[in-house]
């Protein structure tokens, strides 16, 4: 088959252009025409159009194209000097007139050089000389440049996806480096100077290196631009990229999540099964199912997932219906209480009464007991005994220092780390809904801005309300009515009235020395023997020694210190036994002193000598009772009443009442009212560092003042308590048992009590009572009659009275001076 060859280089020289010829010259602005390229041109200026027309009128349509080297010179104005000397002869291939402009397509044929200008008008015309073909100096260099250029063209085309394929083909298949260079030069915007230089190149080497340089520069610019463009593009795409990445991540999570979901399903399934089999009320099950559904809809990684799971586990573990079996036998209960505690007959009686009600009406609300008493009297262990007697679980929680209502009632689940309250936690621990729950130290509840826990206790301890106790965390009603609540407190004072009102108060006063002896013998000594690894036959302690321990080595209403000292002794013996002694050690008074050193406490003994103005009172403390002394002294020339010794308001006021009463009844008691008027008095209640308050020292203060004013001493063997009124009545006070026991311990044998407190006398242990003379008083005069010694005239014994007697005779400043002189 015949085929056409595109070109035959052999025949190129055959282009039929004479060596020299005269052509019309078309000046070009900003464009350079190269041989071997087809280029469209638009010609609109008069002179240029005349030149083209003239060319068209020749047989071969040749036209000389020369670029203007001067800037801003139009084709009409261009002079010879404005034009380069080298141009390209073109053949006009197509021409079309369009609105006065000639559209040309010209084909570059040969380079030429101006030989001689032959006219400027009507168009530029010159005699030109065809330039020879380019020389090839170094073929290898040309080849190298050509390959480089082709490489760069490929790179450039890679960055220009919009270049049409036929151009690509034409460029890539162009094998002649010169033609390629000319084409590139006409395509690239290299600037007139560079392009002209390329046109004027006479060797292929020169042309190619110019092309190479230009192309390299272009390529670099393109790369930079492309990089900048890419970066800008990158910025814009960032959000989109993020989106895509997130989508991918989602996909990945989904892939991985299938496993997770499997785990979740299993977990949820497990919970569901437990929920179905669990013995829980229907409304609880409904709520739990709802939460379970919510949980199933959540991914395991969601924080709520774990919140709900913990919640459901709590719900499942709570003893909604599970109760421990009652085995309530009142005789058995009595036996257990007696076993565990000595004495406390009335307390036991009341506990048994409460238990009896529980026995008769098993569905009744459990009673709520409040044990009030000093530390160490066995409140907590009583609670334990009750649990044992009832055969129920025992759970103790200390409320001491609790300030946050949420501790009792829980936090709502919305909070991070939310937990149910202590009540619900305790119930989960014991796993039955009818434990004996001991709320220890209920009087030590605090409160602050976070809320008042005692307010929450109001609900918990109200039998009418606590059957639907709603913990904030659970948000489900839980029946607390089966719980046997026992609260303990050291004093009733700090317990809010509404709370106190909900509980049955059982006072446990301190023990007498006799009781302590029995408790020690029956419980403490055997317990300490076992705890210290001894055997009963190795350790014995005499009653006298125990009495010494309770009296001189401890001071308390309970037995905790006694037990500790017994423990001390037991350890000393244990040391001996461990060292090899096999003898039985008997602890008597001497051994106590040997092992424990001198007695730690000196009993608040009745003072043997009391000057006038000092009276013995009795105080109630949380530790039991105490004896205290009230001292009054006159301040000659002073005025008013000075009170010291950390007295509270009530106590201060009762002191004022006492003084006012005496003042107003001065004559009745043989007191010179002038004395009271003219002299101040100072009342002091040691020990000065211990705050004291309450009205019960009223009679004592009245006695002290009366003693001061009359000069009659208060009997040292007599202690008293009672509130007084301004009209001289004696009102009853509390804590009589503790006070009397303390006074008895201190060696007092006469006690003045308000007559209305007589009923309390029965509480005083028999052994103590029979050693005491108890004088009931209804009026202050009764008290003073019983308390004050008959008038004494022993001057040496009472200097102050002496002074006062003197004062009776000689009034005025002289007396005061004398008194002061004497004192100094």
């Amino acid at each position: 088959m015949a085929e056409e060859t595109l070109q035959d280089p052999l025949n190129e020289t055959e282009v039929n252009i004479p060596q020299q010829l005269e052509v019309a010259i078309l000046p070009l602005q900003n464009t350079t025409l190269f041989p071997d390229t087809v280029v469209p041109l638009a010609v609109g200026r008069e002179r240029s159009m005349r030149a083209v027309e003239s060319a068209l009128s020749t047989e071969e349509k040749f036209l000389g194209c020369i670029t203007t080297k001067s800037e801003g010179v139009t084709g009409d104005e261009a002079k010879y000097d404005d034009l380069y000397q080298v141009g390209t002869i073109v053949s006009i291939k197509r021409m079309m007139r369009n609105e006065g402009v000639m559209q040309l397509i010209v084909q570059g044929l040969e380079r030429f050089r101006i030989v001689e200008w032959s006219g400027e008008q009507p168009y530029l015309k010159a005699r030109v000389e065809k330039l020879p073909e380019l020389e090839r100096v170094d073929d290898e260099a040309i080849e190298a440049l050509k390959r480089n250029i082709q490489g760069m063209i490929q790179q450039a085309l890679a960055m220009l996806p919009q270049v049409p394929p036929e151009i690509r083909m034409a460029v890539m298949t162009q094998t002649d480096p010169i033609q390629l260079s000319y084409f590139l030069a006409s395509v690239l915007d290299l600037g007139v100077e560079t392009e002209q230089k390329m046109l004027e190149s006479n060797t292929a080497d020169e042309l190619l290196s110019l092309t190479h340089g230009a192309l390299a520069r272009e390529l670099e610019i393109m790369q930079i631009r492309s990089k900048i463009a890419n970066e800008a593009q990158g910025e814009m795409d960032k959000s989109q990229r993020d989106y895509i990445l997130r989508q991918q991540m989602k996909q990945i999570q989904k892939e991985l999540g299938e496993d997770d979901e499997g785990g979740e399903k299993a977990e949820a399934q497990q919970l569901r099964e437990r929920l179905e089999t669990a013995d829980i009320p229907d409304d609880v099950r409904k709520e739990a199912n709802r939460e379970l559904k919510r949980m199933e809809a959540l991914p395991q990684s969601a924080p709520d997932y774990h919140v709900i799971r913990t919640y459901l586990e709590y719900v499942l573990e709570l003893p909604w219906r599970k109760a421990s079996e009652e085995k309530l036998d009142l005789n058995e209960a009595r036996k257990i209480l007696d076993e565990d505690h000595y004495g406390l007959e009335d307390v036991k009686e009341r506990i048994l009464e409460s238990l009896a009600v529980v026995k008769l009406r098993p569905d009744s609300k459990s009673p709520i007991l409040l044990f009030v008493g000093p530390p160490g009297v066995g409140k907590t262990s009583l609670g334990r005994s009750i649990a044992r007697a009832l055969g129920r679980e025992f759970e103790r929680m200390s409320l001491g220092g609790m300030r946050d209502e949420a501790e009792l009632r829980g936090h709502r689940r919305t909070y991070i780390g939310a937990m149910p309250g202590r009540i619900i936690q305790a119930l989960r621990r014991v796993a039955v809904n009818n434990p004996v729950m001991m709320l220890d130290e209920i009087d030590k509840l605090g409160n602050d801005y976070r809320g008042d826990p005692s307010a929450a206790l109001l609900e918990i301890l109200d039998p009418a309300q606590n059957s639907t106790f709603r913990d904030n965390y659970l948000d489900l009603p839980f029946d607390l009515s089966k719980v046997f609540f026992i609260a303990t407190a050291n004093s009733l004072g700090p317990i809010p009235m509404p709370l106190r009102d909900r509980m049955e108060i059982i006072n446990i006063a301190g023990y007498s020395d006799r009781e302590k002896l029995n408790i020690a013998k029956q419980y403490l000594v055997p317990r300490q023997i076992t705890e210290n690894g001894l055997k009963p036959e190795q350790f014995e302690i005499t009653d006298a020694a125990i009495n010494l321990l309770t009296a001189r080595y401890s001071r308390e209403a309970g037995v905790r210190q006694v037990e500790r000292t017994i423990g001390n002794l037991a350890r000393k013996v244990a040391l001996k036994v461990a060292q090899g002694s096999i003898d039985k050690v008997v602890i008597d008074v001497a051994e106590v002193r040997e092992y424990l050193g001198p007695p730690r406490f000196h009993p608040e003994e009745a003072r043997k000598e009391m000057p006038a103005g000092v009276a013995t009172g009795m105080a109630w403390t949380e530790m039991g009772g105490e004896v205290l002394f009230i001292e009054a002294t006159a301040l000659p020339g002073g005025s008013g009443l000075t009170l010291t010794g950390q007295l509270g308001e009530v106590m201060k006021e009762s002191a004022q009442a006492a003084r006012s009463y005496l003042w107003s009844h001065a004559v009745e008691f043989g007191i010179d009212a002038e004395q009271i008027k003219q002299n101040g008095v100072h009342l002091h209640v040691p020990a000065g560092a211990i705050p004291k308050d309450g009205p019960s020292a009223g009679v004592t203060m009245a006695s002290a003042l009366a003693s001061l004013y009359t000069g009659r001493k208060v009997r040292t063997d007599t202690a008293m308590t009672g509130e007084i009124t301004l009209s001289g009545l004696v009102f009853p006070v509390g804590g009589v048992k503790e006070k009397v026991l303390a006074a008895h311990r201190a060696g007092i044998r006469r006690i003045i009590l308000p007559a209305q407190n007589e009923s309390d006398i029965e509480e005083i242990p028999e052994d103590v009572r029979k050693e005491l003379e108890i004088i009931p008083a209804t009026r202050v005069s009764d008290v003073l009659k019983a308390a004050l010694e008959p008038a004494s005239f022993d001057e040496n014994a009472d200097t102050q009275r002496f002074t006062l007697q003197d004062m009776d005779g000689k009034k005025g400043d002289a007396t005061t001076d004398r008194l002061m002189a004497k004192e100094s």
Partner: protein
Amino acid sequence: MAKAFNRHFQFLGSSGGAKPSGRLWLPAADVYQVADGWVVKVELAGVAAEDVEIEVEGNTLYIIGCRKDRSCAAGGSFHQLEITYSRFEKTLKFPASIDGVKLDHMFENGLLIIRLHKGDE
């Protein structure tokens, strides 16, 4: 710059702008095989017979010539020019040697028709 470059290329692609080209006009040609040889038709309207040279060398046929505008010298002015006036050279290769064939050519309706007769002697 890249824009300029692009524009150039686009321009080239769309409007038949600057294109690499040879210097010659390459007229279109058909080649037939007939019983006694070949017939070559070349589109050479307006070419004077004396301006055409035909040569044979081995298996190659060269048709060389020049189309000149002979009607324009009268001083008229072109309004439109679409016909290429240029030197041309057509090179046709045949599958076998055509040395020694008998050539005759004629113009017919603007086509140059060349017959190549295999030598029957």
